[in-house]
């Protein structure tokens, strides 16, 4: 006597769970996100920092901005090239949303893909998002 039947059932369940992403992605479409650059951003040509830096570290830049504004009251950021920006998430022309314009077409594209849901928008409003 042995428990072969039960063990093989358990093994099958494990294999199904382990390979779940494969089955899941068979039924759901996938494509890498393409954040849309607004006309304004296109005109500006460059972001606050280099593109590589922004892609990987924009949240840390925002963290520094937030702390700087709230703790020191300093509201202008000067990047290594000497260009000045409004140290703000969404206020004024020269802020993240000021230049990138649409949260939905830009930030959210990546964020939905990578499953990040910044809580910033609980307080900071994106004026263009109202429908």
């Amino acid at each position, binding site marked *: 006597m042995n*428990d072969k039947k039960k063990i093989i059932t358990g093994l099958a369940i494990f294999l199904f769970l382990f390979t779940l992403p494969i089955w899941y992605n068979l039924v759901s479409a996938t494509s890498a996100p393409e954040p849309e650059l607004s006309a304004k951003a296109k005109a500006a040509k460059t972001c606050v920092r280099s593109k590589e830096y922004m892609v990987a570290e924009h949240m840390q830049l925002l963290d520094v901005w937030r702390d700087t504004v709230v703790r020191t009251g300093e509201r202008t950021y000067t990047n290594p090239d000497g260009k000045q920006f409004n140290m703000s998430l969404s206020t004024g022309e020269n802020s993240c949303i000021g230049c990138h314009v649409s949260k939905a077409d830009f930030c959210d594209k990546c964020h939905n893909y990578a499953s990040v849901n910044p809580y910033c928008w609980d307080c900071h409003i994106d004026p263009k998002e109202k429908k």
Partner: protein
Amino acid sequence: MNFKYLYSLILVIALFLIAYAGVEMAGMQFVFGILVPYAAVVIFLWGFISKILCWANSAVPFRIPTTAGQQKSLDWIRQNKIDNPSTTIGVVVRMALEILTFRSLFRNTKMALHKGAKLIYSWEIWLWVGALAFHWAFFTTVTRHLRFFTDPVPFPITLLEKADSFFQVGLPLVFQSGIVLLAALLFLFLRRLLEPQVRYISLAADYFPLFLLIGIALSGILMRYFIKTDVVAAKELAMGLVTFQPCIPETVGSIFYIHLFLVSTLLAYFPFSKLMHFGGVFLSPTRNQANNTRMQRHVNPWNYPVNTHTYEEYEDEFREKMIDAGLPVDKE
């Protein structure tokens, strides 16, 4: 002094350097991003399945009744339905508690000489705490990682991420489980290193999984909080793997390949190591069998046939003679 941990440490550092050199100097993104992960998964699945199938052939000839609790007996003796279950439901509860809360490890005791003369046993809970913290943090982290392998990311995973970053520390938000994972692993390693008795029995094969997991957690934490990389591209690579359309986005940093290489090593190593206790725990004979030997007969299948002659048969055969001789009989 037992220096076996050094072999394992050196090995994991070497793995780290292999991945780093392979990607940074030799430009072998294809090998470390596609070939190695696929090979690792194939080895993992093949090894895991064959090991379990091998175990499934083991004989289960009888029930093991000696478990920690009163078995089902007379009506007025209270049965311990979880520690000594007589039903499948009881077994399921006992197994669930064992697998989800490590109940038998919770009962861990420690023996020591008190003031050099008296032998005392005391409750030793820290191994249980460390083990439970590690396993749950590992489970949470791996489940959260499904966000790299699914698109759109299912709701339970986003919910788990929300819960795991509840304290909203820093940007990107700190995931508690990742930190607990690393801390628990360091604790488990220090336990082996600093406790003389445990150090004495520890082998390189005990240290290797610890260092490997420490390397994985460390590289993951470095990647998320310190040496940033393009996470969208990392997900593209991961999605390529699970949809069988592998691709190598150029913007993924070498820290990602190091992380992935260590995970691949873990997967390939898994079926041949003590880590198979993941599958083995479900087969614990003192935990997964109902103690119903008093209700059901379990016949050992390879017993040679025993010719029996029961009392009933004996009486049938000799009834007349017994009555003649004045012996009492059950049936007239």
